[in-house]
């Protein structure tokens, strides 16, 4: 259900974010000129193939880039405060306090040598959310109940948890300091479908209940469609389409979005042959000129090969394409 965000200032605003990794083959442009806004209480999905820069954006928002990662341009405005120029120590207070993360590999996001509850308490104490240890523990017990875990499990170690329990614990940990933004990076990928589905509903429920804003990153567009209000489609480090989830799924504007959707099966939708997209994503150390999708695009023309397209705006959504599929009806054609 799309929310109206026009009247309120977005909680998170990313402006012209570019990021590259220094590699032996030269700089690798992982994210290029990405801009988006996240409204208060809204959830935004980022989808795309592996290596398209989704996780890089997540890490970049938390300023947790690996040593060879370089932020080459852009602003990350959290409640109007730009996070990019902050020192490591200043940034420390924003991490978890304002913006928390549900990790891609929740299996390994818990330190094996400490009790699970203690690891959540640690975050609470680091940000002074609760003054006493008893208060912090009480808070963790509440969080555990909220994500469907028995508070007694606080005293257990991560290896005693099942995959689903660990993921719940990691979600509880993300909620520990009442952050205004939660970044969920493939939070359910490692789980089986049934647990995944239940967890998604709970995550969505918690997000609504606490009216938090969420960025949901996944390669699984089915999952993203279920939990997000808006969706951004990424290809080769660029955001190529952004709009309300229902609109984008109803009528994709970018050929890549259409291709991505037709390569996923749908239970509720009409039956169609799953299509595969020929070719591979481009090498980001040496991206093709113009639109990076042109080597795989059926509609590519001369201008696609020469220049990256400008945004084509339509209502609350836009796409960066020379030949947007505006008149196409239906999905996956």
């Amino acid at each position, binding site marked *: 259900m799309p929310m109206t965000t026009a009247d309120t200032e977005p909680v998170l605003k990313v402006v012209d974010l570019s990021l590259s990794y220094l590699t032996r083959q030269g700089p690798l442009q992982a994210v290029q000129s990405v801009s988006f806004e996240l409204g208060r209480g809204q959830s935004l999905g980022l989808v795309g193939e592996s290596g398209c820069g989704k996780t890089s954006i997540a890490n970049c928002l*938390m300023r*947790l880039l690996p040593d060879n990662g370089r932020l080459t341009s852009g602003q990350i405005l959290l409640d109007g405060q730009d996070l990019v120029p902050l020192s*490591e120590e200043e940034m*420390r*207070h*924003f*991490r*978890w*306090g304002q913006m*928390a*993360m549900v*990790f*891609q*590999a929740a299996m*390994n*996001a*818990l*330190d*094996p*040598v400490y009790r699970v509850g203690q690891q959540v308490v*640690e*975050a609470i*104490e*680091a*940000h002074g959310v609760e003054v*006493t*240890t008893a208060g912090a523990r009480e808070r963790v017990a509440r969080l555990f109940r909220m994500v469907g875990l028995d508070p007694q499990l606080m005293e257990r*170690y991560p*290896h005693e948890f099942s995959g689903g329990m660990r993921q719940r614990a990691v979600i509880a*940990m993300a909620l520990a300091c009442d952050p205004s933004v939660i970044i969920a990076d493939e939070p359910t990928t490692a789980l089986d479908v049934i647990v995944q589905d239940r967890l998604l509903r709970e995550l969505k429920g918690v997000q609504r209940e606490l009216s938090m804003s969420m960025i949901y990153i996944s390669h699984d567009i089915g999952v993203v469609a279920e939990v997000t209000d808006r969706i951004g489609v990424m290809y080769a480090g660029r955001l190529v389409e952004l709009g309300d989830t229902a609109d984008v799924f109803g009528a994709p504007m970018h050929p890549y979005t259409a291709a991505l959707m037709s390569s996923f099966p749908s239970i509720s939708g009409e039956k169609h042959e799953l299509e595969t997209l020929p070719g591979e994503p481009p090498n980001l150390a040496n991206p093709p000129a113009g639109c990076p999708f042109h080597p795989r695009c059926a509609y590519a023309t001369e201008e696609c090969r020469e220049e990256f397209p400008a945004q084509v705006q339509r209502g609350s959504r836009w796409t960066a394409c020379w030949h947007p599929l505006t008149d196409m009806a239906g999905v996956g054609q």
Partner: protein
Amino acid sequence: MTSYLARRAGQMVLTLFLIVTLTFFLVQAQPGDYATFYSLNPDIPAEAREQIKASFGLDKPLWQQYLVHMKNTFTGNFGVSFGHYPRPVMEVLAERLPRTVVLFLSATAVSFYVGFFLGKAIAWRRGGVLEYAATISGATLFTAFTPAFALMMIWIFAFKLGWLPVGKFLDPLIWRGAEVSANHVFSYMLATAAVFIAFAFLTLLAARKLGRLGTGRMPFLVIAGGAAVIPIVWAFTGVGYLALDILRHMILPIATLTLISFAGTMLLTRNSMLETMREDYVMAARAKGLPEKVVRDRHAARNALLPVITSLVYSLIFAIDGSVIIEGVFSWPGTGMTLLEAVRSEDLPLVMGSMVFIGLFSLLAHVIVDVLYVYLDPRIRYQ
């Protein structure tokens, strides 16, 4: 856990049996026996020779000697040393063993601490000056020829600078006229160290139980306070200057051992750290907004410690059998020296006695580390 320890004890007895057997036959495999020293003397008549042999029991067939040894060893009778006749083996060892244990245990602790501290620092800040300095000097010292390096240390600090004694356990000039024996003072020093370690351990344990009240500098101030009391107490005993003399004799060997061996722990910690630093839970710890030091020490280094602890077993064994070379160069009267002398003179009871203790302690070191592992890594449980 109890049944596990019981099973381990059973295994230890079996292993000890094998060690003793092997040692017995290895020593016997050397040409000659203890009596040879006497029997080669032409002034001793043939009957007296046979009598000496018989008095040591060396005239009996080998299998009989072996059985007698085994029975005595496992009933706690280590016999009388041939070389230190008529002192019992136990008495010789009771004097020598603590000296070696204290020297090498201190050196192990210092070098483990230095190695772990440097290892985690150079892994955390890679490519710094410290990394190059520590790696190059550490590797150089690690591969240095031990006797030459030990002699160089003596030459610099004892001979040229004159800061520390050249070697030995104590300075006879200082001890002249002292009313207590060195062993007496030394045993009191051991008791002091044991009490202090227990105190420090309990303080840290209490700090952990107290939760946030106990964090920060407080527990360390308490421990430092406890340490400050020690010299005051010793000053009142009147033998403090004697203890200080023994301490002064320990500095150079400990420093030498530390310099030679810290690189092992350091490089192991560094590699282990570089692995744990890539783990998701370290990134998660940083994402949680924990201070750098907490991320490094409580998450990265804490997990990196696990494989490093394994290497501690070997250093602990080193702490019991000592190093013949280090003890030799520093004239330190410990078990390393004793064992070497005993083997060379075929002092069978002393060799056997030393080996039983070395075997026992190395087996114990393994058990201690295995038990330590349970506390360090909650994933490990013994059935």
